[in-house]
């Protein structure tokens, strides 16, 4: 019963927080100069004043701010995210169209970064001052500090232009004909470069964190005990130490779920990846309030779900968590 009421309180707070975020952002967008009708005019190469006034009236943009805000919040409360002014379609439909591409990109990149990062971290933790460790540190910091659009363009020039292994842009080649397998391979080929660019930022975080926690764990008493028992080295490292060192890494991965929107914007732009990041960016530039707030709403949901998943995974990996 305690547990249930705890969950209910958390959900209640989450809803209040979400509403506060929506109101705040609605206000912020409203305060920015210009509105979506200007962007619509831009997309049309200009428009006569009467046309602009007509569109403003139709979208209710000529109404007082409080009226616009309350109508919007009222609609959200009835689970209607509204209609995108700029894209001329329901926001929910628009977001659902884009979300698979982003999830594919971000999750693949996260898994890759986590997997490679942990391996690199462990390797360098075993010989903290070795050549390999220094190399890993350098490599990770380089990936972290290089701007992702620069890495992306560089990868494009190398692997799409000079060595033509991977396609330049988009998620699929519509001129490719064939069955499901052919299309799967096609998407995979398009995925490689964006994933590497995006993973290069996260890699540093994971490898540094894994290295630090591994160093700490390797110095702890039970590891010394395990070694004293005469267990083989790899068993000590991978079975005893690594399992304990993983908790912070998983927590970090959970926090990174917010990157679904933020981290992917640049990579999506460079590779014309049809995801949520580019949509969010373009909607902000276009002052397309319903779309921006809709994306915010969805990413908040993703973060909440992501946190739940993280909790769950932590409990699985670390028995100490289950006791709580």
């Amino acid at each position, binding site marked *: 019963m305690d547990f249930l009421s705890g969950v209910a309180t958390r959900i209640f707070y989450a809803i209040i927080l979400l509403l506060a975020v929506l109101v705040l952002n609605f206000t912020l967008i409203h305060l920015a*100069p210009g509105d979506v009708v200007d962007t619509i*005019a831009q997309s049309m190469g200009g428009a006569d004043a009467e046309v602009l006034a007509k569109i403003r009236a139709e979208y209710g943009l000529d109404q007082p701010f409080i009226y616009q805000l309350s109508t919007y919040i009222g609609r959200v409360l009835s689970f209607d995210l509204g209609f995108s002014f700029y894209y*001329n379609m329901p926001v929910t439909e628009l977001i659902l169209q884009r979300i698979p591409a982003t999830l594919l990109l971000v999750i693949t990149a996260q898994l890759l970064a986590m997997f490679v990062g942990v391996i690199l971290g462990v390797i360098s933790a075993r010989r903290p001052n070795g050549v390999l460790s220094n190399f890993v540190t350098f490599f990770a910091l380089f990936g972290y500090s290089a701007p992702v659009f620069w890495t992306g363009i560089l990868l494009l020039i190398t692997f799409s232009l000079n060595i033509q292994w991977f396609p330049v842009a988009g998620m699929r080649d519509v001129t490719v004909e064939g069955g499901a397998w052919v299309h799967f391979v096609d998407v995979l080929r398009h995925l490689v470069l964006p994933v590497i660019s995006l993973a290069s930022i996260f890699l540093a975080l994971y490898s540094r964190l894994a290295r630090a926690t591994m160093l700490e764990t390797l110095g702890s008493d039970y590891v010394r005990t395990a070694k004293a028992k005469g267990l083989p080295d790899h068993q000590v490292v991978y079975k005893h130490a690594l399992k304990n060192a993983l908790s912070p890494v998983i927590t970090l991965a959970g926090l990174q779920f917010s990157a679904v929107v933020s981290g992917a914007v640049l990579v999506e*732009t460079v590779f014309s990846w049809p995801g949520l990041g*580019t949509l969010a960016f373009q909607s902000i530039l276009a002052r397309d309030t319903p779309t921006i707030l809709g994306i915010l709403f969805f990413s908040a949901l993703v973060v909440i779900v992501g946190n739940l998943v993280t909790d769950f995974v932590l409990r699985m990996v670390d028995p100490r968590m289950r006791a709580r």
Partner: protein
Amino acid sequence: MKHVVTNFLKATAITSILATGAVAQETPKMGGTLVTVMGSTPRVLNPAVQSGIVTGLVGAQLFAAPLRYDEGWNPQPYLAKSWEVSDDGLKVTLHLQENATFHDGEPIKSSDVAFSVKIIQEFHPFKSMFSPVTSVDTPDEHTAVLNLAHPHPALMLAMSGQLMSIIPEHIYGDGQDPKNHPRNNENVVGSGPFKLVEFVPGEHVIMERYDGFWEQGLPYLDKIVARIIPDSAARAIALENGEIHLSTFENQPTIVNRMSAAKGMNVSNDGYGGIGPIDWLAMNVTRGPLQDVRVRQAIAYAIDKNFILKAVMRGTAKDALTGVHPDSPLYNGDVNAYALDVDKANALLDEAGYGMNGGKRFDITLELVPFPGYKPQTEYIKQALSKVGINVTINATPDFPSWAKKMGTMDFDMSLDSVYNWGDPVIGVNRTYMSSNIAKGVWSNTQGYSNARVDELLAQAAEENDQAKRKALYAEFQQIVNEEVPIYYLNAVPMHTFYSDKIGNPPITGIWSTSSPMDRVWLKD
């Protein structure tokens, strides 16, 4: 003035277009998938309710207009096989292709033309195109007569390109709002050479050949895939490695030069006259020192056009001296070019009463327009004006709406801007100079310029059907504006078409680039 074009003339017109192309010896081949690219997702695919170049690229394939234009700015038959303008200029009669059908097989009738005109009048952003049209008569299924309140020469260009798309009444006349009609982006029933297969916003538009197109043997292509790639560097790489065959409206000098050097790639600046893009320095003539015409002239003399064209634009852009695009037959290049003359600029500023005071005359702001690639020109102007003692502060604007708001409400001193002619001056030029259009939002008369003679000239020219007289009126207009400098013209935006060696008859003939049908484009083996 009677203008009748027979089928015979039409045939010769097509032959002559093919013959003037670079590939005169080659016979066009049927089939193939052309992959082209757009820089952003079109809001709407129906050009009757939305303008703009991305809507145009798709819209002009899906929907046909009555006319098309050749590179000499001569109207050619398209959906209208012939047309007449009555002697008093008040009736324009269109004779439609008799075997033309919409993509659902329904015949294209004169009532559809009447319906399309009504929708465009009500929903298209450019009101001036059809505002003089009082009614459309339909004496028979294949004849539409546009009745005009006064002679309206701009109508000819307004009936071509993407500007007058004929849409089916039986689809769009169902009572739903045409602007947000569900069939604008899905299950589109068009009148053009290609029909819509799939539109995925953010990814691509796929179109395929419409087998029932009235012109036998056209279009040549089986399919057109228009991909959406916002990043210009990514577009360039995709062109170089052959993923994309054709890209239009590319205007970044560095990329133009890179493509000129690329193997198997051709670069052309032709075919953009109708679009008519011009870069300029807008000056708010209603406040500060800019109210004085001598200050504005001094600014023009202080800027080295040669440096802009050769160094900043790297030789990719044509010069523009007036608000009419240099490719237009109405362009008047015989005006003051304001060749660099620092002494004269200084003298004019002294005369205007802005004496040099410790190396400085006055402060002024210059907005940095948030379009990609406009920073170098803006920074050069700041530096050039500092030489005559004008201290320029550059205001960076974060994004388009912020900038548009400043411009639309005339809350600026100077700004670079890029404005398109859209065919006839009545459509895209008048809006910048008419005193009745001051501060009516972005790309209106944001300079606050007002000159009674200019208003009169533009009003007369709008109704003058005699081409020679009309040209003279516009020549005088360009002369006056050039002298009063509410705007200093920088260059004709270096719009370029990049096309691979594989493309036959690329869309560089004509005046509308890819905002016109690609029915004659073909792919080599």
